[in-house]
């Protein structure tokens, strides 16, 4: 299961079904045109898809964010200093 799928699966109904339906639309050219009629829905679906994209390490690194390095530093500090 992808991170986005897990994120959606954690949502209660009816958000879960609504978001899945909207994302299914957003992934199709005709659906995107339809969603474009509502700025709110376009922002929501573009935001979710972009969130998934930038969660990918390579995409995030291109913008200066290295999650792996952040967690590795955290782990090293916790081990070295006996933090929980």
């Amino acid at each position, binding site marked *: 299961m992808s*991170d*986005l799928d*897990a*994120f*959606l*699966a*954690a*949502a*209660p109904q009816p*958000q*879960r079904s609504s978001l899945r339906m909207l994302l299914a639309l957003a992934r199709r050219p005709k659906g995107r045109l339809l969603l*474009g009629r509502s*700025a*709110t829905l*376009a*922002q929501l679906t*573009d*935001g*979710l898809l*972009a*969130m*998934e*994209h*930038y*969660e990918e390490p390579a*995409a*995030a690194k291109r*913008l*200066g*964010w290295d*999650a*792996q390095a*952040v*967690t590795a*530093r*955290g*782990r090293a*500090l*916790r081990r070295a*200093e006996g*933090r*929980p």
Partner: protein
Amino acid sequence: MSPAHPPSGAIEADVCVIGAGAGGAVVAAELAEAGARVVVLEQGPHHHADSFSARPLQMMSTLYRDGGHGMTLGSPPILLPLGRGVGGTTLVNSGTCFRTPPGILERWREEYGLEQLTEPELDPCFERVEKALSVAEVTPQLAGGNAAVARRGAERLGWSSGYLRRNARGCVGSGVCAFGCPTSAKQHTGITYIPRAKAAGARIITGADARHVAVARGRAQAVHARLEGGAHLEVRAADVVVAAGTIHTPLLLARSGLGGRSGELGGNLALHPATAGFALMDEIVDMAKGVPQSFYVDEFAAEGIMFEGVAGPPSYVAMSLPLSGQRHAKVMARYRNLAQFGLMVSDSSRGRVRLQGARPLIRYDLNAEDLRRFRVGLERLRELFQAAGAREVFLPLPTGVSPGRVTARQLKLMAFHPLGTARAHADPERGVVDGNLALHGVRGVHIADGSVIPSSLGVNPQITIMALATRLAFNLIEDQNKT
């Protein structure tokens, strides 16, 4: 945290605490250290820092209740993310620490008859909490580039501002406070008070969903919980501290047939609704390098408008940026130049939470006064960014709509501080608990979470909740010593 084979059947305790967040963890530790036999029932799991990935999308699913999708119904709908697990929302908050403003305590005395909750009475509790959590002011170096933008704007405008005090120790500015601190620098209750409670002999049972508080002859008797896997657990205790949070505490009490006399249970919900804007700067900001919430602007606090820093990694910004299509993609490509700042309103609007099926239904409509605060606040946020030298400002508004003309329904709001659904009031006809956080009309049932706070605070509430919980623990210890 919980034993491999969770207990089932019945166990005895002096005090049963429901919830291991800001209120419950504090009460549990203080009572256990005073020698009480304490059992803590926590619905969520224990999260270890080894599982924190610094990836917002991934962490939302695991650290937040309902994956962070919780929402209010009303105008506008408001996203209400809450933490779930040992530490509660302190695990995923920004770590900002404000004491209860003196003017608020005065208001509680005048409007709610809470004579006990004075500054001299609470100061020792605040000091004790702040010491336990290593509360200190963020340094400019640790605050990072995002705070530097806001500071520059505030200084050029002559607005009152400063660095925030936080519960952190050994922070290196990982930038993901809201998604699990990978260094365990943030001193959430799961790594501070809960270990103290355990060391003093308290039993912390995770995956325990408290379903019912049993009362007989006007006195608390037991808490009934459902464990993961469906087993039933009864904790027999003469004192019960409900700390399930502002949304779930009133639902548990209502299911138990408690706290309903005043008609206030579930009502009086305040949220501190909030929104945020972005600015495209010429400089490299790298907003996630540093403490996300490290700086505040309180120039308009008296009007109920507070600005506080907010920031995160690219995937978090991708979801928050109020743009779409090519425009979204182009601005995201300049993530390193983006700054973000939040706007929080001390609300006079009030909502209500009630049970629908097995879930909370939260109704909250923004009133005209709070809408006006958002209109003014968004305009001031734009001013702040422009004074800081922003090349472009992105406010969460529909295209072509200015801050002064935005409607409630057009606002994109989130809220992080639900308060007031079991409010304290000296009068049993007007409140759910008294000034000592004891349920009116019942002996042995107390509440220690944001639900008792009777009004908006205008500032982040975790320290207020913890100080009130400390005071409650001291009172319970005193009572036990008498008997």
